[in-house]
């Protein structure tokens, strides 16, 4: 199959009117911005922007994804538009990635035009959380508690870990909803998890109370940045890959700082 190498080879589409061209780049980059904000890998972001832009009538798009934003140019006939879109937050929300993926396929199949695309993107932007916050607190507690079973704890350790990580998750949600700096949130959450889990150490519950201390901070592990970073670097997106690796390392260091703080407190009590 012949893959077009430059914009000049693909001029079979009719050129778009000015306001439509402006609209297309706006919509394509909106989708890209949502993907970058909520934890997609760089290849997916580029592909999605390109797919939406060309399906809505552009001839070609050139896209650069940076850790803090996206730069793109759409080309249609002899006209072009360039735009920068900055991300406004960093979070993980897989539901958004799923919805944008579905939307981009609908656009390619011709089931969504510019107007339905805008309505859908508005809905996805305003979607919020798919789970009630207490469900998240409970399930994260249960997840960390199950991790403590996997590393060899008994049911007393299980209970302490559940209590500690659910409490830490609650504190984390409270801090995140008050827009506190990400690193402060990580250090504080890790510290709180350690202090709550040390109850088991204090009362000497379970076969090895230290396992609860190790398992309760795992709700903070930067799984998404680290996996995305490896994937970006393997696919040649070094800028975003390195930025995400540094982000993941910083979060890991933040967890360690919380642990160190907590254990120097516990040492005062003779542990």
């Amino acid at each position, binding site marked *: *199959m012949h*893959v077009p190498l430059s914009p000049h080879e693909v001029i079979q589409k009719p050129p778009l009117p000015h306001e439509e061209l402006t609209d297309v780049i706006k919509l394509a980059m909106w989708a890209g911005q949502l993907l970058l904000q909520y*934890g*997609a890998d760089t290849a*997916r972001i*580029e*592909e999605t922007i*390109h*797919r939406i832009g060309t399906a809505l009538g552009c001839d070609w*798009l050139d*896209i650069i994804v940076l850790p803090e934003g996206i730069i793109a140019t759409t080309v249609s006939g002899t006209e072009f538009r360039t735009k920068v879109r900055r991300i406004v937050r960093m979070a*993980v*929300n*897989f*539901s*958004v*990635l*799923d919805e944008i*993926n*579905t939307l981009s*396929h609908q656009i390619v199949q011709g089931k969504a035009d510019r107007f339905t695309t805008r309505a859908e993107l508005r809905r996805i932007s305003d979607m919020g*959380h*798919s*789970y009630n916050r207490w*469900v*998240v607190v409970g*399930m*994260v*507690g*249960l*997840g*960390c508690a*199950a*991790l403590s*079973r*996997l*590393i060899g704890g008994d049911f007393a350790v299980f209970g302490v870990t559940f209590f500690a990580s659910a409490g830490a*998750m609650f504190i984390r949600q409270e801090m995140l909803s008050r827009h506190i700096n990400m690193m402060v949130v990580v250090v504080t959450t890790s510290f709180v998890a350690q202090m709550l889990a040390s109850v088991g150490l204090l009362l000497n519950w379970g076969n090895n109370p230290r*396992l609860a*201390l*190790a*398992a309760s*901070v*795992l*709700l903070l*592990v930067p*799984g*998404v940045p*680290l*996996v995305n970073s*490896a*994937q970006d670097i*393997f*696919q040649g997106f070094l800028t975003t890959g390195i930025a995400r690796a540094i982000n993941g390392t910083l979060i*890991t260091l933040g967890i*360690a700082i919380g*642990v*160190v703080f907590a*254990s*120097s407190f516990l040492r005062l009590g003779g542990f």
Partner: protein
Amino acid sequence: MILFTILEDALWSAVVSVGFAILFQAPRKTLFGCAVAGGFGHAVRRFFITLGMAIESATFLGALVIGFWALYFSRRHKTPSTIFSISGCIPMIPGLTAYGAIQSLINLTSSTPDTGVFIVYDAILGLIRTGLILMALTLGILIPRLVFQREKPVV
């Protein structure tokens, strides 16, 4: 007996995967896939560890299994495969090893030259092992995707 250990292992790691999938706000239809990927991956790792394989290689094999399950579920539900692979690999995160390494580093501040040598050994070993397991994990879940999910390049 060994079968029972592995089944229990799979059950708990499925719980871990679902818990973290919910933390990452994964769509409801994907939760079952996350549980299957996480459960199978960790059970495979436990199986090879009981056979006597080193934890790093066993992690790589477990992560490969997660990667293939993630591809299967991503095609079935028409959704990004990262949802399944990231949630599935959380049970294999070397949390205890990393925690032990940090504890050794803290203990180093209150050690004498005699005991310090062993503490440094522990800390460095823990850090290296953590790094190797993490690398095996990410490589394992990426390889199936990079090999079998090549779309025709659009950019």
